[in-house]
């Protein structure tokens, strides 16, 4: 239970002790710790291995910029790889493991890579592994891949749940450090609706890690007071543990809220918020960067600001004997802070005094540093400060470029900010506290005022205002060993110079060739030094060299958090037909058809397989009568004085003269001349029509009709309402369908004369329930479709089957429906696939030449109109016992099996109980002329090869006597 590096002070709760697991041991820490601070408190220096050379690495930072201390968090299916220990809020029973080593962390077998370093420089893999050719796939690449990556996924389904949500605010303040807090306070007091978000679990930002005072209180106390005042304002929402990761169009921000208390699988572990704002203030602070010097990657080499954070916020000593290496005043401040806490600072190396750290020693932890090539100093921790880089990422997500400011040696937000965003505080390059507070306050006040909130913003918080002077210094001169720039991806000064020497002079080339800044930390500490070194090598200025493009997300977001709750069965909505319950209770197997679940068939006891059920349903329907729920067809209520005219324009065939009480089959073409949907439209009154569309195209057709109505003919009086879900509609098909319906429909003469083929009527059923009756047939039998309000769906199905008992009426499913339509030769999705014309489908006569048909003109294009083009045909296996395969390609017998001789394909197949063999439909070049001839249906991918006889697509009742009977 010893935390040997723990010292007094800090913002942790020492009254509570937390146990946590690190690799094979239990360690302790306190609430307020991060995993990183707790590991340091326990004297754990070596925490991970680098990506390429597997160098020993320690904790480098105290925030999300951490390149080294990546750990695997959690266990089993709930483990997460590559999490920065510096961002993990310590919890009791937390499990964490180091990663990217073979064997124990201290004795990683792959550290042999480090010895090969001279041969593994920038882009080495592009220059070899090419011979012999076969070895790449078999040997080289598998090896490279097995070495790739840092952590590993569990390979099991993520047991956590996630959610998303939508928030609205006048003002989003990003970052709750001094600038963000004073901005939020000013705007909140003025009365604006404010969201204040910070990725840390404690508000205050750097104030928690420094010894500055604000309004004569300690910085962290001031932050606590401000947070308290803000939380008392109803119009302010405080969001700790919330990282704003992306700036999107029109004031939309993406944010990720962490819920550490969520139980696995109980409540969401993350909530991904889409925040709609009128204004945003970016107060994301700045990130300290390092200096490149030989062997600067040893455990114990740490950012100076991080050292202050561990001492001041976490009450942890990063070392026993420490040194500071700096090019700016922050380094000096670090020495003061640490000394004032009784820590031993043995030397301060300031490049401005001409001093440099030129080497280090200590394999698994820093033992000593070399100053100016000569003087070796024993230290176990070196605090390095290369200056601060404003966190400009969110200002660049709209491709705005930051601009270089020589005086602070840093990139600051450029002039072209995302609309509505202002930047304040350190993120804006303002590095002294007094000015930061002032800038934040006025930014908050201004934003509120611009939005019309005029309440008093209160007074400006006050603090000391010492400026931080810096003289840029990027890396210690060459030939003194490797100096790391990107610690995680193992990119050194030499790599950068070599890539420049090879011609990769663009900063984008540098990034892509060396992988600088492409690791999990996205180069938060390495990008600026890297391009400074590139600029130096090119003999160009940093401003000329520029930066790569900052892309969202600012910090990594779990894929599960973006998916939210759209998972498993709830990936997309499920639509049920009005008779779903009845079908479920009567043996139906269901199948996904788009979002719909439809009955495929109704299994009966004794039926061995689905074919038995389907064959029976077809036989009994054609033999007597069957009932099928066809409610999924799109239904559109069309009303208006000009409805007839409208329909006549959107269908390729004439509709002006359709009488009241009649239904007509209609075909729609796309404007490019290809067929895209078909269905029937019934005329219920002078001004009232009901259209059906295919199930698949219901929404598309409706949208296109609305476009025609609003944009092409805005002065036609016509109105559209989708009524797909409002009606339960059933096909009643078979020779006994009339007899069945006469027991259902109230007082309507169904005789062929009174209610002939393609008649329709509004009527009532079962003694008074309103209904619509259409005499249309998809099966080719004498058939009707009858529709009632959806609320009666299950009951109506029951009623129809009950009324059909004298005739052995059966319910039939989607498969039987499909079989009967193939037998009859009706086209469906497989033929009406957007690549076929009316002519190809044998519907050429339905394209009127007498009117302006949508798509009519482009249907005349030569390739669409060619006489030798594809035509719909029927197919039968020459050997009647053979089976057919949809997707087989059609060839002349004996023709070469290549695309040049490819004459079409099989679109649909079915077993016809009536014909007792398989049948099919196909699209074949010059198909109409081939009736009676024999072709080859060839399907190499399924190893099927069948001779087929080409025939009319109407396998049964070609004259249509049955449906008219």
């Amino acid at each position: 239970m010893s935390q040997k590096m723990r010292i007094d002070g800090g913002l942790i709760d020492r009254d509570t002790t937390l146990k946590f697991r690190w690799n094979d041991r239990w360690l302790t820490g306190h609430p307020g710790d991060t995993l990183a601070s707790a590991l340091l408190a326990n004297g754990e220096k070596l925490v991970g291995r680098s990506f390429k050379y597997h160098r020993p690495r320690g904790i480098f930072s105290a925030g999300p910029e951490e390149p080294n201390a990546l750990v695997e968090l959690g266990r089993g299916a709930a483990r997460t790889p590559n999490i920065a220990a510096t961002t993990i809020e310590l919890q009791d029973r937390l499990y964490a493991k180091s990663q990217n080593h073979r064997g124990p962390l201290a004795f990683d077998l792959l550290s042999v890579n480090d010895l090969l370093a001279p041969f593994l420089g920038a882009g080495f893999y592009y220059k070899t592994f090419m011979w012999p050719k076969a070895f790449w796939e078999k040997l080289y690449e598998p090896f490279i891949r097995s070495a790739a990556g840092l952590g590993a996924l569990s390979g099991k389904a993520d047991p956590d749940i996630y959610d998303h949500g939508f928030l609205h605010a006048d003002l989003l303040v990003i970052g709750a450090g001094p600038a963000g807090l004073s901005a939020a306070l000013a705007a909140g007091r003025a009365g604006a609706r404010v969201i204040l978000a910070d990725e840390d679990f404690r508000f205050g930002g750097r104030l928690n890690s420094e010894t500055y005072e604000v309004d004569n209180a300690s910085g962290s106390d001031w932050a606590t007071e401000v947070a308290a005042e803000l939380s008392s304002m109803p119009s302010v929402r405080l969001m700790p543990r919330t990282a704003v990761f992306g700036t999107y169009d029109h004031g939309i921000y993406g944010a990720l809220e962490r819920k550490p208390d969520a139980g696995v699988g109980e409540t969401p572990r993350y909530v991904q918020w889409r925040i709609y704002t009128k204004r945003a203030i970016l107060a994301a602070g700045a990130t300290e960067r390092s200096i490149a010097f030989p062997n600067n990657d040893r455990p114990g080499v740490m950012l100076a600001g991080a050292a202050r954070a561990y001492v001041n916020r976490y009450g942890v000593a990063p070392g026993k004997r420490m040194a500071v290496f700096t090019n700016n005043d922050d380094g000096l401040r670090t020495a003061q802070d640490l000394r004032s806490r009784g820590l031993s600072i043995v030397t301060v190396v300031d490049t401005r005094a001409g001093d440099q750290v030129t080497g280090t020693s200590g394999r698994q932890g820093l033992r000593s540093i070399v100053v100016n090539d000569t003087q070796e100093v024993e230290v176990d921790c070196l605090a390095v400060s290369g200056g601060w880089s404003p966190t400009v990422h969110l200002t660049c997500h709209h491709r705005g470029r930051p601009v270089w400011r020589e005086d602070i040696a840093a990139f600051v937000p450029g002039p072209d900010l995302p609309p509505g965003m202002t930047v304040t505080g350190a993120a804006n390059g303002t590095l002294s506290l007094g000015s930061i507070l002032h800038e934040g306050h006025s930014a908050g006040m201004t934003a509120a005022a611009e939005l019309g909130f005029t309440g008093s913003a209160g007074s400006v918080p006050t603090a000391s205002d010492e400026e931080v002077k810096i003289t840029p210094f990027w890396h210690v001169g060459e030939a003194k060993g490797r100096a790391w720039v990107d610690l995680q991806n193992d990119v050194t000064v030499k790599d950068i110079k070599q890539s420049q020497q090879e011609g990769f002079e663009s900063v984008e080339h540098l990034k892509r060739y060396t992988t600088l800044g492409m690791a999990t930390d996205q180069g938060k500490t390495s990008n600026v030094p890297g391009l400074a070194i590139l600029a130096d090598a090119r003999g160009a200025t940093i401003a000329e060299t520029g930066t790569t493009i900052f892309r969202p997300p600012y910090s990594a977001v779990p894929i599960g958090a973006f998916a939210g709750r759209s998972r498993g069965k709830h990936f997309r909505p499920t639509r049920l037909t009005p008779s779903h319950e009845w079908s479920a209770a009567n043996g139906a197997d269901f199948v996904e058809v788009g979002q719909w679940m439809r009955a495929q068939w109704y299994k009966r006891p004794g039926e061995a397989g689905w074919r038995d059920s389907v064959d029976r349903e077809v036989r009994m329907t054609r033999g007597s009568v069957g009932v099928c729920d066809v409610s999924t067809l799109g239904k559109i209520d069309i009303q208006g004085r000009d409805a007839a005219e409208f329909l006549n324009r959107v269908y390729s065939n004439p509709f002006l003269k359709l009488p009241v009480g009649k239904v007509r089959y209609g075909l729609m073409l796309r404007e490019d001349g290809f067929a895209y949907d078909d269905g029937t439209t019934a005329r219920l009154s002078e001004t009232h029509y009901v259209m059906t569309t295919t199930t698949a195209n219901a929404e598309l057709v409706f949208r296109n009709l609305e476009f025609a109505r609003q944009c092409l003919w805005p002065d036609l009086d016509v109105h559209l309402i989708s009524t797909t879900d409002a009606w339960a509609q059933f096909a009643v098909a078979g020779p006994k369908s009339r007899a069945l319906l006469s027991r259902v429909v109230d007082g309507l003469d169904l005789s062929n004369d009174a209610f002939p083929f393609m008649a329709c009527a509004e009527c009532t059923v079962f003694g008074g329930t309103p209904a619509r009756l259409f005499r249309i047939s998809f099966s080719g039998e004498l058939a009707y479709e009858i529709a009632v309000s959806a609320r009666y769906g299950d009951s109506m199905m029951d009623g129809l089957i009950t009324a059909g008992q004298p005739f052995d009426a059966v319910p039939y499913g989607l498969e039987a429906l499909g079989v009967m339509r193939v037998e009859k030769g009706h086209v469906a999705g497989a033929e009406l696939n957007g690549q076929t014309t009316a002519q190809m489908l044998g519907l050429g006569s339905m394209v009127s030449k007498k009117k302006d048909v949508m798509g009519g003109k482009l249907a005349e294009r030569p390739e669409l109109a060619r006489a030798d083009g594809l035509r719909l045909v029927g197919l039968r296996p020459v050997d009647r016992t053979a089976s057919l395969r949809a997707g087989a390609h059609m060839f002349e017998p004996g023709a070469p099996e290549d695309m040049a001789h490819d004459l079409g394909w099989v679109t649909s197949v079915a077993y016809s109980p009536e014909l007792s063999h398989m049948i099919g439909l196909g699209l074949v070049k010059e198909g109409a002329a081939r009736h009676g001839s024999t072709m080859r249906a060839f399907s190499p991918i399924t190893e099927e090869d069948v001779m087929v006889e080409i025939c009319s697509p109407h396998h049964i009742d070609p004259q249509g006597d049955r449906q008219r009977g």
Partner: protein
Amino acid sequence: MRYSAFQILREGLTGNKRWPRMWRTPDPKTEYDVVIVGGGGHGLSTAFYLAKEFGVTNVAVLEKGWLGSGNIGRNTTIIRSNYLLEGNQPFYELSMKLWEGLEQDFNYNAMVSQRGILNLCHSDAQRDQYIRRGNAMRLSGADAIWLDQKGVREMCPFLDFENARFPIQGGLWQPRAGTARHDAVAWGYARGADQRGVDLIQNCEVTGIDVSGGTCTGVQTTRGVIRAKKVAVAVAGSSSRVMAMAGMRLPIESHVLQAFVSEGLKPVIPGVITFGAGHFYISQSDKGGLVFGGDIDGYNSYAQRGNLPVVQDVCEGGMAIMPMIGRARLLRNWGGIMDMSMDGSPFIDKTHIDGLYFNGGWCYGGFKATPASGFCFAHMLATDRPHDVAQHMRLDRFMTGAVIDERGAGAQPNLH
């Protein structure tokens, strides 16, 4: 310098000081036989094959930014030849064959990794379509295998077979498909072209196309006028803008497609996997990052960035078929501009203006086409005749009706 293990050894032992430049940085000459506008993948491969296959070396490639800054710099690296239509499949199969010999061809390791592509199937209707497509692939000499559910399960046990909204029924598998290191492809072609005498001119933006009497005579650039016997435009993402300089309107809309990469992870995804009931495809890079994407945002854009709804849609698709990736974290997300044509297929053709040639409309299929696109464009430039496998990729096909519409979506670019 010829790259080899030996060179790496030698340079390593001597401090890696002698690695030569990948390519020269010449100033533009006043005239070339061929000026290629666009230093992305297709422009560079066109230059490479012009020099290597057709001996045309008095060539300049004009790039407004840095070499490889076209869509070859921001795609999801997938190579495949699994098309349906006669107008496409033989072309992409030629591309696949060129990929297979690429590294030896230009002495640069582009890490062509043939770990296969699996198109998941979720319904009987989709099965029939895939079988029709798989047969078309086989008939054009490509490889294609139909896997039933059991076969898919053996290959990818981590897919959701128990609880999926759209159950996985099987899949169309092309073993020779895979991925390649996209930047390295650009660098390899650039180096190969440069070594054969082609001038690669960076930071040189074309600002005008000179046409007189129906003939193209050269281009105006930020580095002066450059005359050319033939001007070849290959500027994915800027096709309409550049061709407008010659007064042409194209059957193209430019849309943004987002791409995504996770942090580096130990190998977990075998090849390329695509979702058949939603918008999601994924592979894993040599460095371990999950590289994935989905549908275009769906509105005209030149902004090279997308919006949240599509990010969500893509990740929903991923979780729908492989819920193991929930804890993998999205590291970087970017957008590229796709020149979406009216039938979803590209153009490699001469224009009605003598001496002006156009290569574009690749939608989001451009990367896999890089070798064949360059090869066939070079063929067109050198011979003034379309290569056999590209004979359907003509600009006039919407007049004749000879469209190449794999999806049957019609003239609605954001549906292709």
